[in-house]
């Protein structure tokens, strides 16, 4: 069953969903899409800190649904229709995971097809001359060259074309799988203690450096791939190591007009 893991990370102002995936070694995902092509249904596994809290209504994002506590219960005001929410979620996956993999798939397909496209077929007028080149040897007293010539003229292009077709068929199947992988999806919510520890560290935000501390702990907690999230987060929002390159600007002239 193809599985997509999502981690619900605390990012100081709200929550972010992060999916562990290698930026360019995509074979493991292609293998999953091939499974989807064979008719298996995708499962999205959402890792959260606390399952109990997740099911609580007020935790829902306010742009979909506003929940207010009243004296007698909860006042629920839907902001979007179910259809709109579905569309929204679909677009979210299409713009991130699916688009990314579709691009990688196209790149990989063309890389693999490049070497096999007409490798032994030289097109154009001169190709005819080149193909007849072994005739010279055959006519000049080396008839043993014949089997080799027929191999070159008929055998090689035939098998190379088969290679080309095999590869394009394979990638076609993967891309069909990619399309169907995001059609039928089941969601499963699971509780992750390591994630809770990390989110607590970010929430505590000691010295205003919650992200960098989470970055240091992530690998030890078995969530090393979250370094890819915490490292840019700390560099962008906390005390960055790149600030040492921020110098006061060098004046173009030793004096300025205002002085």
């Amino acid at each position: 069953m193809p599985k997509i893991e999502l981690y619900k990370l605390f990012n100081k102002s709200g929550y972010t969903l992060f999916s562990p995936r290698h930026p360019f070694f995509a074979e493991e995902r292609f293998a999953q899409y091939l499974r989807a092509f064979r008719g298996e249904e995708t499962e999205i596994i959402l890792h959260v800190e606390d399952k109990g809290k997740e099911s609580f209504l007020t935790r829902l994002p306010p742009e979909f649904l506003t929940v207010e506590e009243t004296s007698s219960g909860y006042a629920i005001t839907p902001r979007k229709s179910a259809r709109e929410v579905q569309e929204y979620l679909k677009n979210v996956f299409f713009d991130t995971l699916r688009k990314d993999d579709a691009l990688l798939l196209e790149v990989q397909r063309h890389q693999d097809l490049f070497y096999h496209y007409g490798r032994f077929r030289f097109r154009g007028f001169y190709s005819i001359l080149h193909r007849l080149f072994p005739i010279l040897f055959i006519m000049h007293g080396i008839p043993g060259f014949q089997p080799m010539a027929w191999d070159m003229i008929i055998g090689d292009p035939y098998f190379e074309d088969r290679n080309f077709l095999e590869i394009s068929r394979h990638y076609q199947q993967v891309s069909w799988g990619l399309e169907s992988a995001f059609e039928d999806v089941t969601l499963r919510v699971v509780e992750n203690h390591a994630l809770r520890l990390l989110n607590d560290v970010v929430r505590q935000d000691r010295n205003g450096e919650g992200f960098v501390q989470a970055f240091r702990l992530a690998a030890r907690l078995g969530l090393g791939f979250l370094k890819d999230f915490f490292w840019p987060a700390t560099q962008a929002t906390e005390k960055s190591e790149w600030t040492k390159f921020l110098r006061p600007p060098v004046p173009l002239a030793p004096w300025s007009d205002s002085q």
Partner: protein
Amino acid sequence: MNWREHLEVMDIPLYILPARLSGWYEEGAWVASPPCDIAELARKVRGKFPFVLQWAVYAPPSSLPLSEGEMESILCALERMIDEFLYSLSFYEKIAKNYRFMFSLCLVAYIIGLFSVNTWWFIWFRQPYLALTGIDNWARRRRFLRLAQCRLQTITQGQDPKRHEALSEVLDFFLTLSPGDPAYLEKIMGFLKTKEKTDSVFGEIRKAYENLKRREKDKSYLLKRIPHTSWTKVKRFFLGDLLLIPEVFTPFLCIPVRDLSFTLEAVEERYAQNRALQALQ
């Protein structure tokens, strides 16, 4: 999954082992590893297809045991590892099969040449190395393809108390080692070897550690994948047609997991010590 087919459940223990991994994405993590490599796993499921692979997790005692999500991520990692391996083997085999078939024409040419004409030596310029294209992946694929008959993988808590006890002993020994010891794996293996004589469970745990040791000794993925030495270039030339069919590397079934002896309190203490030191300075 077809509910009508008879599925045999293969129960494979998965040990959570105290370790100190050192990669960028796994620094300080422990490891989850079964007591067999993927070749042995494939051998175990011989003649048992289709089947369900059930990983039974055994972990040393901890104040914060593995949660559902962590178990699930271990399962996902194992599934992905095996899937990717089988996927790459089958994909490259599709191309390699054609190349090897190309050699059959070449063979016909040789035979015709041998029996028909006196000046036949030219045909040795054909590509005899095509016969060897991707032969290593072919052999590997034959061994591992039965793993593709796995219909479902599940993960559960292991029920054997002996294994849990053995792991707690291993953890006790691990905690006696100094934290910066570079030869900690050898020491643990030595400990397990002495224990193995009394209890065979320790032998299983040693095998799981051997998995990890093999992985630690192995070269990095990039160095393996890119043929950067002359010898690998020559080898890949003969086994694959000019690097079009790269070698598919057998995965080590080792998954980094949370350090179960880790608590946030220890980190808090360290911060407090640092603050005290800073105040002194």
